[in-house]
């Protein structure tokens, strides 16, 4: 069995704001093994980024309150001091962000920024750190790394910047790489390259990856396990194959229906989930997806637990609907609107 790296137990992240308490993340639990890729999927405001940033201690602040535990190799990262957290950031857990245009500091050379990351944790001299930076840039597929290492970020294209970000995040060989919407700001043609790169480097560096996205298509190939989040909680979790072929949450159906697919008859329009995600200050009673769910019924006023309701072990969901009913009715939503109208 693979080495267990991370155990998140009943994590809750609440922010005190002027409008009230924002329950950004509520009762999220999951585990991560070395070499595994976990996809966290959800709309904006579903709590997926907050979850990821909390693993890095990036949500810490006077207004933030945490509950539960984030155990990294047995150590609860929620309990350690800011100073101790610094040693984990970049070194044990690396992170890349959505927008490579703004995530690199425009006034420093790319190489300098990678060298800085290396030297934050390894006490090596500049020359050796620089050589490693060149090596890393080569590994992420930057052509002529020896000269590009001295370029400024604005001299890089979007895809190259994201590659440089990946090089930086991997520079201290972290056990976990968190990729927060790494492809959202990139051209479609570059997206696949970046995903492929992350998948390949994960093996080279023997790391685990947490890939955060709103696009199930992005994680379809790369993820071993998928966790669908809605309104700060996990609504469905399971092996990628199970979530794609036997989705149990109507919200997951909606997400699946919103990806264009070439292997199915083309609908007139892609499915779109009606309404907007609920406020995290005054969340609806019962199932959080109830107000937008076409199949909601009386029982949904009470919130279902995240538990296994199907035959497959490890496939959990939060839905009261009968499994056979769901298997019969979900295709309408997944296939798109022309089928629904018919």
């Amino acid at each position, binding site marked *: 069995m693979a080495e267990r790296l991370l155990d998140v137990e009943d994590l809750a992240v609440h922010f005190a704001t002027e409008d009230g308490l924002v329950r950004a993340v509520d009762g999220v639990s999951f585990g991560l093994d070395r070499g595994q890729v976990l996809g966290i999927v959800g709309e904006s405001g579903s709590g997926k980024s907050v979850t990821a940033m909390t693993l*890095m201690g*990036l949500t810490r602040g006077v207004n933030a309150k945490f509950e539960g535990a984030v155990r990294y190799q047995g150590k609860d990262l929620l309990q350690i001091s*800011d100073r101790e957290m*610094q*040693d*984990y*950031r*970049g*070194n044990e857990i*690396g*992170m890349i*962000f959505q*927008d490579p245009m*703004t*995530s*690199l*500091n*425009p*006034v420093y050379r790319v190489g300098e920024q990678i060298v*800085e*990351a290396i030297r*934050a*944790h390894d006490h090596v001299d500049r020359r050796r750190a620089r050589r490693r930076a060149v090596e890393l840039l080569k590994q992420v597929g930057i052509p002529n790394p020896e000269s590009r290492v001295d370029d*400024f970020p*604005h001299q890089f294209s979007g895809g190259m910047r994201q590659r440089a*970000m990946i090089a*930086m*995040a991997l520079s*201290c060989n972290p056990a976990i790489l968190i990729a927060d919407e790494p492809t959202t700001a990139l051209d479609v043609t570059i997206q696949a390259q970046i995903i492929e790169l992350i998948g390949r480097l994960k093996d080279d560096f023997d790391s685990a990856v947490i890939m955060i996205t709103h696009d199930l298509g992005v994680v379809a190939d790369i993820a071993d396990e998928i966790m669908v989040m809605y309104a700060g909680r996990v609504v469905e979790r399971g092996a990628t194959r199970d979530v794609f072929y036997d989705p149990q949450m109507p919200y997951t159906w909606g997400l699946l229906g919103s990806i264009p697919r070439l292997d199915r008859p083309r609908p007139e329009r892609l499915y779109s989930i009606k309404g907007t995600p609920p406020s995290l200050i005054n969340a609806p009673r019962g199932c959080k997806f109830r107000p937008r769910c076409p199949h909601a019924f009386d029982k949904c006023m009470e919130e279902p637990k995240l538990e296994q309701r199907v035959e497959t072990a490890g496939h959990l969901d939060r839905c009261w609907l009968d499994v056979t009913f769901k298997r019969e009715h979900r295709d309408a939503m997944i296939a798109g609107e022309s089928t629904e109208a018919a």
Partner: protein
Amino acid sequence: MLTFLIRRVIGAALVCLAVTFIVFVIFIVVPGGDPAQRIAGKNATQQNIINIRHSWGFDQPFYVQYWDMLKKMFNGDLVSYTSQQNVVGQIVQGMPATFSLTIGAGIIWLFFGILVGVISAVTAGRLSDRLITVFALIGISMPVFWLGIVARYYFAEGGIATVFPDGEYYPISQNPAQWFWHLLLPWVVLAVLFIGFYGRVLRGNILDAINEDYVRTAKAKGLSPRRILIKHVLRTSLIPIVTLFGLDFAGVLGGGAILTETVFDLHGVGQYAAQSINNFDLPPIMGVTMYGAFFIVTFSVLVDLFYAYLDPRIRPS
């Protein structure tokens, strides 16, 4: 890079010329500005005035007069209408005082402005930030002529608590300690306004920069908060301060600290400008304007160069 510099220098020279021309035209248009009458004095006959007008060239068309004045300015024989003293000589005489005032005050206001800005941004929302905000606003609101006089009243010779000598410039070549002692009060008085202002601007810049994505990246790398602040936050936050400082410094160097120089009787270029304006004395006004414009345009070129150094995105390639 070289073409950029040449273009900027030519532009700067043109700006200086345009400024003197505008000053000249304004002077001609303003009523009561007939210099012949002033030179002639109260009891002059009409013939006296006409003679003066002719001998000084005031009966020439204005462009001839302007050209004449420019020529004299560059030859160094521009002469005041009222005191008949050489303008360039007067400006050169005032420069040590003005330079001493500007450099000392500049160092004080830049240092404390940055210090105040950083402290209040780092402790944003807490008591120290609020106190600094209040003091900064008081500093910005206190006019120099008032603050200067109050400072003299309380701390200068003959005042309530005699700590400092009262006004006047003491040449550094004669006694550096006395020079410093004489200037300390004017430095602080002049710097107070700028400290408050720079502190407020920098505080805002830092608070903006802290929310930048690349600061989050720096944090995610595991850098220490101090390193993040100095290397990633301050670097970008200081860029607007550079512009402010360049232009303010040039302005004071060019004789802009008229009030401070006058209140403390420093006999600098600014005070000379004030006197000349009072006397409606065109040649010194032209001279001081040219002198001031020179510093402003020079420093704006320097600021541009420094900008390109600070921010690689705007480097001309």
